[in-house]
């Protein structure tokens, strides 16, 4: 099943690549493909975290807001520093510490999501819709709606280097691509080869059954929302580093692209079925559409329509493929 689903996403990707290569010679060049991968990385990292949440039978609508909040936190610490009024001092953190704090913010909001779902028994859709608003409001509150400019840091404060997260390169490939690749491999390993991964699939497939065989469902759920929060914060930090500025509206509607990548990758929104590799392919399908349509000069309104059609078409194919009697068993684990 998983193989077929993954093939389907790959076929879609191959078709898109062939079509765009035919339509515009600028598409299949090394420079463009590196750029494409760099653009895809943002949505892919968000979608990787989202994959575990969806596999566990949940959804995380707050990822875009968490990205914005993490970026604003980093911008604030780099730009203004942490003002300790009673002591009359301003503490500036080094770039790695700022990144660490940004990621902690993501983990914290993720934990809040998890606790709302597990302890307060709020439906994931509602819990994360709430944090979507709270995190966005918090991001706006940090600066009163303003942008933190010029995040290159100052040598005399010892906080330079943050922008490397977005603009640094290794072996001529931009940092975001490496982070996407590293997270992709790590998450694929976790999903496919570890007891934790099997528990996530089990919880998403049948929560009661999972609980009855001794899986601590609450822990699994808390963990997946924290993973998603971590990925979202990383995305927000990368964007702030790329733009060398932190804007409080960053990440608005990103959750929809991330969910689309997960679904395109063959992960079932009802949980228990899907794969990390599929999500990466799904993110590339969306990225190829985004950049390819721009290269072609297709009007922005048509771009939106075409994206919608591709997403729905992919899910229609998914439904046809998993219809009973076709040899595929819906809801079965990998």
């Amino acid at each position: 099943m998983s193989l077929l689903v993954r093939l389907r996403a790959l076929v879609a990707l191959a078709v898109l690549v062939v079509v765009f290569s035919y339509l515009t010679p600028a598409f299949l060049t090394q420079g463009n493909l590196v750029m494409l991968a760099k653009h895809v990385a943002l949505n892919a990292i968000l979608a990787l975290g989202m994959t575990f949440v969806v596999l566990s039978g949940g959804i995380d609508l707050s990822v875009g807001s968490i990205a914005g909040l993490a970026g604003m936190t980093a911008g604030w610490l780099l730009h203004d520093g942490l003002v300790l009024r009673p002591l009359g001092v301003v503490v500036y953190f080094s770039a790695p510490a700022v990144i660490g704090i940004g990621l902690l913010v993501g983990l914290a909001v993720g934990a809040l999501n998890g606790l709302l779902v597990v302890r307060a028994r709020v439906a994931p859709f509602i819990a994360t819709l709430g944090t979507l608003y709270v995190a966005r409001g918090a991001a706006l509150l940090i600066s009163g709606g303003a942008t933190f400019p010029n995040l290159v840091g100052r040598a005399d404060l010892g906080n330079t280097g943050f922008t490397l997260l977005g603009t640094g390169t290794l072996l001529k490939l931009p940092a975001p691509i490496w982070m996407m690749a590293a997270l992709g491999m790590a998450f694929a390993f976790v999903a496919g080869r570890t007891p934790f991964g099997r528990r996530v699939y089990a919880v998403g497939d049948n929560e009661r059954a999972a609980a009855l065989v001794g899986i601590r469902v609450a822990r699994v759920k808390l963990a997946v929302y924290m993973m998603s929060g971590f990925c979202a914060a990383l995305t927000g930090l990368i964007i702030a580093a790329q733009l060398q500025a932190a804007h409080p509206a960053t990440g608005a509607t990103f959750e929809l692209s991330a969910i689309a990548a997960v679904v395109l990758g063959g992960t079932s929104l009802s949980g228990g079925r899907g794969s990390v590799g599929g999500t990466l392919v799904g993110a590339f399908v969306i990225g190829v559409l985004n950049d390819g349509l721009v290269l072609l000069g297709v009007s922005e309104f048509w771009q939106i329509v075409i994206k919608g059609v591709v997403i729905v078409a992919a899910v229609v194919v998914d439904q046809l493929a998993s219809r009973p009697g076709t040899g595929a068993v819906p809801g079965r684990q990998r």
Partner: protein
Amino acid sequence: MRRKSVRSGVAVLLVALAGIAGCRAAPPTKRLIAIVTPAHDNPFFKAEAEAADAAARALGYETLVLSHDDDASRQDQLVDSALAKGAAAIILDNAGADASVAAVRKAKEAGVPSFLIDRELNATGIATAQIVSNNYQGASLGAQEFVRLLGERGTYVELVGRESDTNAAIRSKGYGDVLRKYPDLVAAARVSANWSQTEAFQKMETILQGSRKIDGVLAGNDTMALGASAALLAAGLPKVIVVGFDGSPDAIAAIRRGEIRATVLQPAAPIARSAIEQADLFLRTGSTGRPEKQSVDCLLVTPENADRFGIFALKREAAGTGR
């Protein structure tokens, strides 16, 4: 069966792509100008994008018209794409004065000049030109007309744009500097409606719940003016004087109907054309012959002169003769 599913998937995707098959890129014989603006669902940005597009084509350029939807990250990616496609120049209405600096610098480092329109960048020496309408002068103009219509006395409400937007602050300052001189003008409320028609409608309704003794509404843009005007009409207060800012076709139509009394037109279309002319000059001669920061004065639109205005330009300008 499996093979069939895959085949049907391919078929569906091909159908989806059929719509773009007609857009095959022409061989790159002409030089390319990328025109990047906020979303075209706002007539202001549509007008400036179309004016720039038409002017560039008239000068023999290919164009790539893109929209960043006020998302700085998306804008960054669009600039990448424009550079990858070999754009010779970029016309940009940017997605944030600070958040756009990196993207414009990237273009400059790639040897591609950027010509900013409508919104400034919080940095100089990176863009080749920044051509914006003079928001402060426009706001003074609107406020003076507002004062005249009110007879220099009364209670008014100011609707402010999005607080994080520089233009919102500049316009509000322009308004305030005029209104402050008239002690008989009393501000009943000063609230932000985030440039939004719906929000202006709701905030106006809320304000009217508190007091119906409002003589005038001075809005930071036309969409908020239209929202406030709708709320006032619904509340049975058609005589309240509403003044907007931008000169959108909707607002000019409302002025003709007498629902709004005046607006300040930002010459978006002439600015966009000027950016293309300067880009052309720069590409041919290496200089625009002008300073980087250029400001263009706004024009007052009233019921008397409303017929002279087209889409974000005086009508003879809209016809393409320019200045």
